[in-house]
């Protein structure tokens, strides 16, 4: 069941092959400095879209604009449209809690809250009002399984999440988002601080998750983008330079700047 974003409108039924998220003419800035310029991008259902680009090219801002986390910064302003299933996410009366449950986010640094593993995963469902113990147990178990963490922690759910290793913490953060049963997953360089084995586990999880969710993966690691995505978008200085199927973009980029970046000439 999809919860409606706006309290005053009914969502029209949509065919499933329409884009999950539509971004049109998006400009964003913090104070006077523009961060994103004229971004047009569609995110399809059940695809893994990688966003690559050098530092400060607007990748993270783009993600945080999608789930409206940038709203927390009063200097942030934007123009243009973002539609989730055809509904304007920036319309007045938008229920931000519902929006952020539908578009879940995992951050670059694993941030376990200083609670037990169980409480971390159950936090999102509890916020939404789930109190039933059985139901929560079930959500926690399936979220941890989907994030490939269950086998490692099933006997110590009551232990502090902060005692987990870095890679486990990041999978915990993925599981915490999955517990919300989101439709879109935003991952902001989720493997930047992780070893290759942990990275591989997260990439495996993403491949499985793709069958249910749209995934947007921001990464500094072009190899990871090549491995773990269906389409890739290249951001540079706040602009979307090029977006296409991952194999094409990496073997035959249309723009010289994309070619320079993926061959390591800058960035």
């Amino acid at each position, binding site marked *: 069941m999809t919860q409606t974003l706006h309290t005053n409108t009914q969502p029209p039924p949509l065919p499933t092959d329409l884009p999950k998220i539509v971004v049109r003419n998006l400009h964003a800035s913090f104070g006077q400095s523009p961060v994103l310029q004229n971004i047009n991008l569609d995110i399809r259902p059940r695809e893994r879209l990688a966003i690559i680009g050098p530092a400060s090219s607007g990748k993270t801002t783009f993600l945080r604009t999608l789930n409206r986390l940038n709203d927390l910064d009063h200097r942030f302003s934007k123009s243009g449209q973002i539609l989730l299933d055809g509904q304007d996410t920036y319309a007045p009366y938008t229920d931000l809690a519902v929006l952020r449950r539908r578009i879940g986010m995992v951050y670059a640094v694993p941030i376990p809250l200083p609670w037990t593993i169980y409480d971390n995963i159950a936090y999102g469902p509890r916020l939404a009002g789930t109190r039933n113990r059985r139901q929560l147990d079930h959500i926690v178990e399936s979220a941890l399984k989907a994030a490939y963490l269950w086998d490692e922690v099933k006997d110590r759910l009551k232990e502090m999440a902060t005692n987990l290793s870095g890679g486990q913490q990041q999978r915990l*953060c993925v599981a915490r988002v999955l517990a919300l049963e989101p439709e879109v997953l935003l991952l902001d360089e989720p493997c930047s601080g992780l070893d290759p084995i942990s990275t591989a586990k997260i990439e495996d999880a993403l491949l499985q998750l793709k069958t249910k969710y749209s995934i947007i993966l921001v990464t500094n690691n072009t190899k990871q983008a090549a491995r773990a995505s269906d389409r890739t978008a290249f951001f540079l200085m706040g602009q979307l330079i090029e977006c296409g199927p991952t194999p094409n973009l990496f073997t035959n980029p249309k723009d010289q700047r994309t070619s320079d970046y993926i061959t390591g000439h800058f960035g």
Partner: protein
Amino acid sequence: MLLSPKRSQFLAVSVMWLLAALTLGVLVFIIGFILVQGLPHLTWTFLSESPRSMGREGGILPMIVGTLWVAGLAVLIAGPIGVATAIYLTEYTREGRFTAIIRFGADCLAGIPSIIFGLFGFVFFVITLGMGLSVLSGALTLALMVLPTIVRTSEEAIRAVPKSYRDVSFGLGSTRWQMVTWVVLRCALPGIGTGIVLALGRSISETAAVMLTAGSALGFPRSIYESSRTLALHFYILSREGISMTNAYATASALIIAILAINLFAYWLMRRFVAKVA
């Protein structure tokens, strides 16, 4: 002549050690001096009896009760107001002229001598509002006095909660209020508790402000509208008017032991809390 790095290091450590020892020494000396004078007279009967002939004889039970009433009520009033102010300042409003004014006001309030609070309490609560010399007047005055402490320590504690926790909470679909109550307050509770215990200690040991507002009646307060003498004020009157120095020291000993006990209890509570949360 220049000192060698090793020597200057040795010298610096020695000086710092000495100064630290001096700090501790002063504290131990004052507490020791009072306990040596007072402990021999601090008997169970002294704690459990009412004073006779103005406190020359008898005990201090009504003052213990009065202190608990006045200080407890003050913290009960100032605690929620202070914590709510701190939450508002940190989570619900942007830094700007308004927050600067509130903070400046709190700092000014913290710097005002307690006798001025006493005078204000006397004029406003006792006379204008007609509460008379009473537990309530005293508690309200003390509440105003300790409010800045509670606001600023709570603010520090709330600010110390990592910003990333807030991002996570919002990202998981919490409202701001849910984020504050589930994440921020849970993490900041030990710090907030410390501030409240500090405020309780200040309320218990305050003399000037309660003298002018809670009065100095020797009996038990039967309600918050009656006057009551606190321990600190009892000590002041006993020694100032030369009624009984032995009883004054015994009262002071009881006061010091009570404050030490409160602090230890607070530490114990906090450690238990931290063990549970972190």
